[in-house]
């Protein structure tokens, strides 16, 4: 390989040496400024007049250990609900988005209904939807009423389905019309064009924002506890009420962050891959 045989010129050697010095200098500056800021923060917090009291009521290791099992069992509910609601909301969002793209007068009612749905549920606060479904619907006293947890899940799916439908729709519209022309010119029907050409490209393109909404959903699933079921935050609240100590909340918060990290990492990875694909690799 000529690349390996190549002996750099004097000018290149000088440039490389200069760049190495610059790199070392940058690392030193970054390290010292981080250390300085960290020290300042620690001094500001621990030196505060109320620090001892805050530490006792928020960071008590003994109470954290005692609260962990109940908070964890609450978190298990969050995880199960997250998986079901994420799948449900993604499917609902995709269906609504596709319905909104249908052309032709026959589909006017379907289009209008789908559009009305996205307007309503993106505007309506989640808490109100939750109350309507978990408190209002059981009040109808119908036969075979599903448990409150399922109703709460439906409320979450309805609300997030509205957001995800708009993300999917943006993806569908981002596929250039020349792709449709190419597919239709091959004799593919509208449905086949959607299924094989438009949707695969659209979903790939909007995967990062979709996953971002799933990360947001992860925190909102806990709101079903307003209707009774005990999730991680509610479990922490109960523990707090027993001990008059806020440490269980911190435990729940740390667990939520730990739970979010893999999902956020996947989102970042997908985003990076999408960006690489866009630039042609």
């Amino acid at each position, binding site marked *: 390989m000529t690349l390996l045989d190549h002996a750099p010129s004097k000018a290149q050697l000088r440039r490389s040496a200069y760049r190495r010095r610059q790199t070392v200098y940058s690392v030193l500056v970054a390290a010292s400024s981080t250390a300085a800021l960290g020290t300042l923060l620690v001094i500001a917090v621990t030196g505060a007049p109320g620090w001892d009291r805050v530490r006792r009521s928020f960071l008590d290791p003994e109470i954290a250990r005692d609260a962990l099992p109940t908070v964890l069992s609450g978190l298990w509910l969050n995880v199960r609900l997250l998986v079901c609601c994420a799948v449900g909301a993604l499917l609902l969002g995709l269906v609504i988005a596709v319905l909104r793209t249908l052309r032709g007068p026959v589909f006017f009612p379907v289009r209008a209904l789908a559009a009305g749905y996205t307007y309503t549920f993106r505007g309506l606060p989640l808490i109100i939807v939750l109350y309507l479904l978990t408190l209002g619907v059981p009040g109808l006293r119908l036969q075979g009423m599903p448990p409150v947890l399922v109703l709460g899940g439906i409320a979450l799916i309805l609300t997030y389905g509205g957001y995800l439908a708009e993300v999917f729709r943006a993806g569908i519209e981002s596929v250039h019309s*020349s792709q449709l*022309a*190419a597919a239709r*010119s*091959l*004799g*593919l029907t509208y449905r*086949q064009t959607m299924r*094989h050409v438009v949707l695969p*490209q659209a979903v790939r393109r909007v995967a990062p924002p979709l996953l971002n909404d799933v990360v947001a959903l992860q925190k909102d699933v806990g709101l079903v506890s307003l209707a009774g079921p005990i999730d991680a935050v509610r479990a922490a609240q109960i523990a707090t009420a027993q001990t008059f100590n806020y440490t269980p909340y911190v435990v729940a918060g740390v667990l939520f962050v730990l739970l979010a990290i893999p999902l956020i990492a996947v989102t970042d990875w997908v985003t990076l891959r999408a960006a690489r694909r866009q630039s042609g690799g």
Partner: protein
Amino acid sequence: MALLRCRGLRKEFGGHVVLDHLDLTVAEHQVVAVIGASGSGKSTLLRCVNLLDELDDGTIELDGEDISDPRVDPDRVRRRIGMVFQAYNLFPHLSVLDNITLAPRHVHRRVRAEAEAQARELLDRVGLGAKADAYPDRLSGGQQQRVAIVRALANSPRLMLLDEVTSALDPELVGEVLAMIRDLKADGMTMVLATHEMGFAREVADEVCFLDAGRVVESGPPEQVLGEPTQPRTRQFLRRIIEAGRL
């Protein structure tokens, strides 16, 4: 018998007349080159023939059938017409093989193995057999356009519409695409090609149509239209082409 017969085609876009009483007849195995300045209506003509754009007036007959009748199923018509675009329009999420077999499998309901065997054979014939499993963004422009032609051929069309298929290519890649079209002509494929390659039009076309402002101003054998044009507008257009060094 005429394979394609267009009569009195009219198309407007927002008050601007793009096709104006345009007549065009293409016999079986004939190659017609449509030339003219940008905006003269070449692409719109091809898109109307493929029913991608809706006509404002006139009729189009394919094999004697009036395909401009709104009761005709456009998907059924498009299966008999292959179209190749200036910007290739390959599907970026599908491999070369899947790009080519998409229509045979889902439109013509062929089994996968059979469709893939046919696709590989077509690819081998144009020297792209090694690229079957590659994705379009790994191919050069010339290779992508050749795949796009193969994709259209996999439908065994009666008629091929080629819309400025070399205009987006680097000059050194134009030759490989033109060679493929030359082979198609030798195989007897009926083609309408909108083109800026006057030299190629002269060589491969049986008839050249000069389009200006949506009308056929002059048509006939290439030697006549490109060599001794009778219409002043054709002469003016060709003079500009020669000045640009393209003929």
